[in-house]
């Protein structure tokens, strides 16, 4: 399964570049990055090619970091693909706490990252719908 690291940052200049610098210096590749803004602070969610090491190096630099399993679904990169998935999740009563995506190959494949309340159930539902989720290894080899 895939996982993301989440970093707590104060809302002031230079925080994202600090994180990017640490990851870059350690040879880690960022697949996707999003920020949920909470006013005076924000939570930076990052998908890297190696979440375990990302967690380790960011913690070592004194940042508050957490690791969390997420569902990474491969979808087609064409109009309507996202709505198909989300409608399916909706019908299956899966509550999505956060979602973001990135493109693998333009006009071919994209990855949708989902943070969900009940990871196990969501995993089953997604597989049951015939969708392919990325494993840790697949994410690493992207």
């Amino acid at each position, binding site marked *: 399964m895939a996982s993301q690291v989440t970093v*707590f*940052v104060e809302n002031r200049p230079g925080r994202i570049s600090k994180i990017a610098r640490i990851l870059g210096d350690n040879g880690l590749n960022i697949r996707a990055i999003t920020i949920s803004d909470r006013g*005076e602070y924000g939570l930076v969610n990052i998908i890297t090619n190696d979440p375990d090491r990302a967690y380790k190096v960011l913690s070592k630099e*004194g940042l508050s970091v*957490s690791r*969390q399993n997420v569902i990474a679904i491969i979808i087609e990169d064409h109009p309507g693909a996202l709505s198909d998935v989300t409608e399916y999740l909706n019908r299956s009563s899966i509550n999505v706490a956060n979602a973001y995506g990135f493109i693998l190959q333009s006009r071919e494949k994209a990855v949708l990252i989902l943070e969900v309340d009940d990871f196990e159930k969501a995993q089953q539902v997604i597989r049951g719908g015939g969708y392919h989720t990325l494993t840790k290894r697949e994410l690493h080899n992207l």
Partner: protein
Amino acid sequence: MNEYWDRELETITPGGLERLQLERFNETIQRARRSKFYKKRLPDRLKSLEHVKDIPLTTKQDLRTGFPDGFLTVGLEDVIRLHSSSGTTGRATVIYHTRRDIDNWTELVARSMYMTGVRRGDVFQNMMGYGLFTGGLGLHYGSERLGALTIPASSGNSKRQIRLMRDFGTTVIHITPSYALHLYSIFEEEGLNPRQDLNLRIAFLGAEPYSNEIRKKIEELYGLDAFNSYGLSEMNGPGVAFECTEKDGMHLWEDSYFLEVIDPETGECLEDGHEGEMVLTTLMREGMPIIRYRTGDIASVYTETCACGRTHRRISRIKGRSDDMLIIKGVNIYPMQIEKVLMDMPEVGHNYLIELERVDYLDTIKVKVEVRQEIFHGKATELEGLKREVAENLKNEILITPRVVLVEPNSLPKSEGKAIRVVDKRTTGAD
């Protein structure tokens, strides 16, 4: 305007005052010896006021230790009111008043208000909190004694305050300086100009330190005379010292309080004109006399006599505190109270900083809490919950809701020995 509420007492000769004080001091000693605390601490009687300095000082800690009845000299059936400090951590103090105590206190407040020019026919809007805080009830009783029409508006609800002022033609207000400045912005929003649309002529600014510039600003904005005063709940509350119309120093009512100024380090008595900690003795209180009380307030006594003709010595503005007490929105708070609340929350522990700021003239408390790795699980809902919990726990202790700000780990100053965890960023109140 040389008119007195009580000419005989207010213009008493120095010799007459000394005789009166000695007599009242000895009466106070007789009464105080009935309390558990003073039973063995006091001499039989003083031959002269020179010997006051030989009596041990009484501290705030003594009052806490004596809680609830260690200082009481009468049965509870003779007590008609109490005022108590806030605090849920067992640091509370209480002051008991008999009927005569309330009567004497009321008389002093009426005398003080009269001195500034308040008369029968005035409309007095009391915008201080009522309840355990002595400022509200103290001036309420004094104003009624004086014969002014008294509106117990209490604090807050700005639009209603303005409505009351306009409906009843308020001429005198009692208000904190920060609220007076804040309220002016509400007048502006309503398209009103207090100078033209109101009948105000006198303001009592109290409950928090403020500079002479702020006083002048309020006088200008509202078109009135603002008066400074001094009081503390241990000495009843308001009415200990008040400015006369000269507005130069506050006359401390020496027929009711015995004033000394000491060096806070050595405890030595200082001559008039020297800055030090004020030590006060109640000369009139029955239910709970307090002798040689360390107020913690730093001030000096004027050496010159006042043009108003009153002989009671004047004290300067309060220059600061000999301890770490903070006055926020008129509430007395010790950093220890805040620290205890935060230390009791394992999520917070030692990782916090308290900043006092003045935003739009209002005091605010900001509590910065570090989000350490151990408490961070990547969930915003959890962090918001922590913010709420810190704010609520503090509100329960200090009665003020702080703004909680989450910061990155290791961003606050590290504690080395006695860490400075309270930063007062407000401009200082004293001149």
